[in-house]
């Protein structure tokens, strides 16, 4: 066991939250836990913005002719919804909030390797966010979050430059976070914490960081070239001057496909922690699950061309990308099987985090399997660019990443805030979100197969029934998201005080007090056992 000593102080003990007061103590903090909270507040803000765009879109689509706004406005809504949700919510969500908070605690360190870089990355994120908000206020942008040329570079007369700068800048925030995690995991593990004793969340964060570090710079340079093309019309992506618009798509997806794994891998890490804790079992096939994260990170870089099967890309390149896309499905499948097997002969309890984790498994399974339709060339030709795509990636990004994020927030909330939330409300919210999500997005699979293209501000009347169903589901989903927002804020003041380890979980973060002191551990812990040592003593270790 760890040597971290805990005095049984409960209430007025010194912790990272009451260590210092005033806005300066937050805005100039170098404490990874406080920076995590800065991120938590900012990404929640962007989630609300992106979410309200989604709500407006779903209301608009209740009528075939469009119920709410002009087509131009609708185009700006889905563009900003995509940009805000992807670059300013999903990509930083688990890494920058939970990762920032937990990586040093889990490795048994006092902070990340580079606390100043960490704070810098939050400021970079905020500056990027301000550019994006500015572009939204100053008329919006209507290129779609994919910025396809030559529409974005030559034909769109909206705020392309401002939003390109915003995304470009935010990319560096992501790079710095990834760099910090890699160095921390390599160099700052507590004595005895070998690679194969690490919690799977750390493995997931490590794999995610690899993608952030290797992929994001390519997005940055691509967006930079796009901005140059937009400002100067040098011709690099413009066919009128001999450029090739498909080159933009190659460079864009080189990052933006792996970016999907930046969103889903951390959620997988969270789910591994939760399942192990609430089944009181070591994750079935720990090493396989760990390696599959790395395999996904590496293979995920080789499949970007499946976004381009119908764009006039070479059919032979399409063939290779199709094959590799199928291969990346395998490690994901392995993870699902292993999580399911972890439940076998476990001792399962149904606290709210576990409900989110189980919901994740179900929705991710559907999202992953519907990905096969799109990796397969012949069916992708029909489904590409339709609502089937929209449904598929929302199952991965919302059903997967957001469920994982919410599960993680609920799991570690007692650690983060030192308070407990009402479990009944949390379980109810989890159920409403699960149902609302399926109501919203399942009809979209059918819509896509029937042929309704995405990004349509108005549509033929025959698609109305399914669109209305989807919009109805979205209201349920929206309510579902509001509930945790209310009771989590409520719990910060009125929730019962949380003990250091309310779930009886393993892992170094539970060995310190809740909330942890600024220096995390009174004494650097020494690790002497495997991760997830939930079993009785005689069976533990091997």
């Amino acid at each position: 066991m760890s040597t971290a000593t805990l005095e049984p102080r409960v209430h007025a003990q010194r912790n990272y939250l009451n260590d210092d007061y005033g806005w300066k103590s937050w805005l100039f903090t170098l404490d990874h836990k406080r920076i995590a909270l800065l991120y938590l507040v900012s990404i929640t803000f962007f989630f609300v913005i992106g979410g309200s765009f989604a709500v407006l879109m779903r209301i608009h689509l209740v009528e075939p002719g469009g119920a709410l706004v002009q087509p131009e406005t609708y185009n700006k809504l889905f563009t900003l919804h995509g940009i805000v949700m992807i670059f300013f919510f999903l990509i930083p969500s688990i890494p920058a909030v939970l990762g920032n908070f937990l990586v040093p605690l889990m490795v048994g360190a006092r902070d990340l390797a580079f606390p100043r870089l960490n704070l810098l990355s939050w400021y970079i994120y905020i500056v990027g966010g301000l550019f994006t908000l500015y572009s939204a206020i100053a008329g919006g942008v209507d290129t779609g979050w994919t910025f396809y040329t030559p529409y974005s570079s030559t034909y769109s007369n909206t705020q392309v430059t401002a939003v390109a700068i915003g995304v470009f800048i935010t990319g560096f925030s992501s790079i710095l976070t990834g760099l910090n995690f890699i160095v921390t995991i390599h160099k700052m593990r507590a004595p005895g914490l070998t690679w194969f004793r690490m919690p799977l969340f750390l493995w997931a964060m490590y794999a995610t960081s690899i993608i952030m570090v290797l992929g994001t710079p390519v997005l940055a340079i691509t967006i930079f070239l796009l901005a140059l093309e937009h400002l100067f019309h040098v011709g690099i992506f413009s066919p009128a001057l001999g450029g090739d618009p498909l080159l933009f798509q190659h460079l864009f997806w080189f990052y933006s496909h792996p970016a999907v794994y930046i969103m889903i891998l951390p959620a997988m890490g969270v789910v591994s922690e939760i399942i192990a804790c609430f089944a009181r079992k070591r994750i079935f096939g720990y090493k396989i699950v760990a390696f599959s994260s790395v395999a996904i990170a590496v293979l995920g870089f080789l499949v970007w061309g499946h976004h381009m099967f119908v764009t006039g890309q070479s059919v032979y390149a399409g063939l290779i990308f199709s094959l590799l896309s199928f291969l990346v499905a395998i490690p994901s499948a392995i993870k699902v099987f292993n999580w399911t097997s972890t439940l076998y002969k476990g001792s399962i309890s149904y606290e709210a985090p576990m409900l989110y984790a189980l919901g994740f498994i179900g929705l991710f399974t559907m999202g992953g399997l519907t990905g096969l339709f799109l990796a397969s060339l012949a069916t992708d030709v029909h489904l590409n660019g339709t609502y089937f795509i929209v449904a598929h990636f929302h199952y991965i990004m919302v059903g997967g990443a957001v469920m994982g994020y919410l599960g993680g927030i609920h799991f570690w909330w007692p650690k983060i805030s030192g308070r407990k939330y009402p479990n009944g409300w949390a379980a109810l919210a989890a159920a409403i979100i699960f149902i609302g999500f399926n109501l919203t997005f399942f009809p979209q699979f059918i819509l896509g197969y029937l042929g309704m293209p995405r990004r349509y501000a108005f549509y033929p009347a025959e698609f109305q029934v399914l669109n209305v169903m989807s919009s109805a589901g979205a209201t349920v989903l929206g309510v579902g998201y509001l509930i945790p927002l209310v009771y989590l804020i409520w719990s910060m003041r009125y929730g019962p005080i949380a003990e250091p380890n309310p779930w009886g979980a393993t892992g170094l973060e539970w060995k310190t007090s809740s909330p942890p002191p600024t220096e995390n551990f009174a004494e650097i812990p020494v690790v002497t056992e495997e991760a997830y040592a939930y079993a009785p003593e005689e069976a533990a270790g091997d």
Partner: protein
Amino acid sequence: MIETEAQAQHAGLAHQFEDLEQQQDADALGIWIFLVTEIMFFGGLFAAYAIYRWLYFPAFQGGSHILDIRLGAANTIVLLASSLTMALAVRSAQAGHRRSLLLFLAATVILGGIFLGVKAVEYNQKFVEHVVPSLDWAPEGQTLARLTPGGLEHAQIYFFFYFAMTGLHALHMIIGVGLLLWLVLRARKGDFNPHYFAPVEVVGLYWHFVDIVWIFLFPLLYLIGGRY
């Protein structure tokens, strides 16, 4: 920031590390990972370059022949020399020679400055020849005659890459020179000793990386298709 007594022994040691060695290891790993992101950052540009060079080889050849190969080669040697002085500066810091550290850092700054100066002359030349894409694109006379066989539109793409790649490189040089000046200031204060010189080493690695980028830019921009 809270520092416990044991960690405050050395001014250069940050509180999150156990000892200086762990900190140095972390710094070194950090800068190498940063350099990898730089590889990918320039890499996107190199990938785009590779595609267009293959598609429009004659135009790239024509554009390349406008450049002054002597200036390019001379500048390459200047930059390599600055890498040498940088390596020697790190060595001096390692050995604890403050005077020679200052000397070599200054030499690196000067060589970097010369490189940027030559680059400015070359850029100016492009404006004189009106081969700046979009801003001043009206090649005439001899220049026009050289560019025409490869297709004028595509020569513009070549010059876009010329400016984008060398411009991004020059930007990195300018940042590098700024970092070097910061090192000079710290070295004058006597901040570095054989146990603590990580900033010198980190900036050194960055400087060498920028040098390597140029090592590729020179043949890729100046030497396309030979000069025979």
